[in-house]
């Protein structure tokens, strides 16, 4: 009995060690008659950066939203740290604390200052005290280079500054995984750089990231692997050098050429 239980625990640990942080398994999803995913599989290891690329409408953003269940999948399963998070009885709010999300349209809380945007989750979700939350928020904002803007409201910030607050807000929850949904697409090119720099620093710090982006320079330098999605399926996946230089599929080459120029 005891031996058996020890075995089980050993097995579990071994599984956990080999378990990728994020495992997406045979995910199907449709919106009405439109089939978005036809069996997507994807694994992201701890500390890895996975970049999703694909033509518009290929479901890149939807896939991110499925990971933190802003959108529910129809079939298949998603595991975070070995836990099946797509189960009906899984705690969605707990899952979302572990998965930070940065939005294309930023979505800062418009009525709160930069600092309050970060402290809201700390206080209401993580139960931090007032001064503790404030210190943490100021630290997160300093990390994204916004120490001098803590009291500014979103409407008083530039797009790049806003998106950096968005990143600080997500990081304050100490997520295991960060989802970036085209974080720079809504920004002027010269404002994108400040956001990309912050993301690059996160990569160096070892954050596990799933990124939808058209910034091929970032994908090339930061990604451990790139996944090309089209038609609701993974067309091709591989390290950036291989995908850019010697793609296996003609379609991948065409697509990367079309956006990389």
């Amino acid at each position, binding site marked *: 009995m005891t031996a058996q239980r020890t075995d089980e625990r050993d097995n579990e640990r071994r599984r956990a060690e080999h378990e990728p942080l994020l495992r997406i398994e045979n995910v199907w999803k449709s919106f009405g008659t439109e089939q978005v995913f036809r069996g997507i599989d994807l694994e992201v290891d701890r500390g890895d950066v996975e970049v999703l690329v694909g033509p518009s409408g290929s479901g890149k953003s939807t896939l991110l939203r499925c990971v933190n269940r802003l959108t529910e999948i129809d079939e298949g399963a998603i595991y975070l740290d070995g836990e099946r998070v797509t189960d009906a009885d899984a705690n969605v709010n707990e899952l979302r604390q572990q998965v930070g999300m940065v939005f294309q349209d930023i*979505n800062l809380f418009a009525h709160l200052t930069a600092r309050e945007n970060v402290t*809201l989750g700390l206080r209401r979700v993580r139960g931090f005290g007032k001064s503790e939350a404030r210190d943490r928020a100021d630290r997160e904002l300093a990390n994204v280079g916004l120490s001098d803007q803590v009291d500014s409201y979103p409407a008083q910030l530039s797009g790049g500054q806003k998106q950096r607050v968005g990143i600080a807000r997500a990081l304050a929850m100490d997520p295991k995984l960060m989802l970036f949904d085209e974080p720079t697409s809504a920004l002027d090119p010269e404002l994108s750089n400040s956001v990309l720099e912050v993301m690059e620093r996160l990569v160096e710090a070892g954050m596990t990231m799933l990124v939808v982006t058209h910034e091929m320079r970032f994908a090339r330098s930061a990604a451990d692997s790139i996944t090309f999605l089209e038609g609701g399926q993974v067309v091709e996946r591989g390290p950036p050098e291989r995908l850019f230089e010697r793609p296996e599929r003609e379609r991948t080459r065409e697509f990367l050429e079309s956006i990389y120029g």
Partner: protein
Amino acid sequence: MIAASSTALPLETVEPIAAVAAEDWLFVLDNYEYLLAGAVITVALTATSIVLGLLLGFPAGAIELYGGRFSSGVVRKAGVAIRGTPILVIMVFTFFVFPLEWLYVLPASEPFQAAVLALGVRSAAYQSQIFRGALRSIDPGQLEAAQSIGMSKREAIGYVLVPQALRRSVPGFQNEFTIVLKDTSIAFAIGLGELLRHSHDLMTQQTTAALELFVFASLIYFLLTISTNRTLDYVNDRYAIPGEG
């Protein structure tokens, strides 16, 4: 009654009226305390009705938008029914039909209670729409962003959507306030001694002063609307989100 003018011009018709008017204005001034007492009832009725409308209306707006199928359906239908009924009908109902003894809470006369109930509930039906519209006007991304840091939908609504929607409700609320203030005069019909009723009482004593009395009453209504509007303008500016409109 006033000595006729000796001029040849046909002023006889003008001068007596001017003189009578002066007399009637004096009548108004002599009775200003009675009129102001009516104005006080008008203000009290407005304030109580608005607060009742706020307490019922804002939650109703949120329920209509976010509630379950049953609760939002009930609220929506009740709103349609109330908005589709003339205020005078509602007030006659609350006065003659509704068992006011159920409302132990209000230490006020029955007409006052009936008027507050009618104006408050009617205002709630409109305020719910003001608030619902304000909530709907907020980018759905705000809700998703709040949920993405682990807030439940209820927390997200409470901490992120409601504070923004309240600010956006002020202009609509400003209109509603003015409407309730002016519609307190309907309570005349159930015999409540508000401003219009008191003006009317005085008119029955001196019928020639009808114009003066009602001009005076209008002036008071006007001052009350202007001052509340200015106050709410201030509230709107004071709580505006910095950097936004």
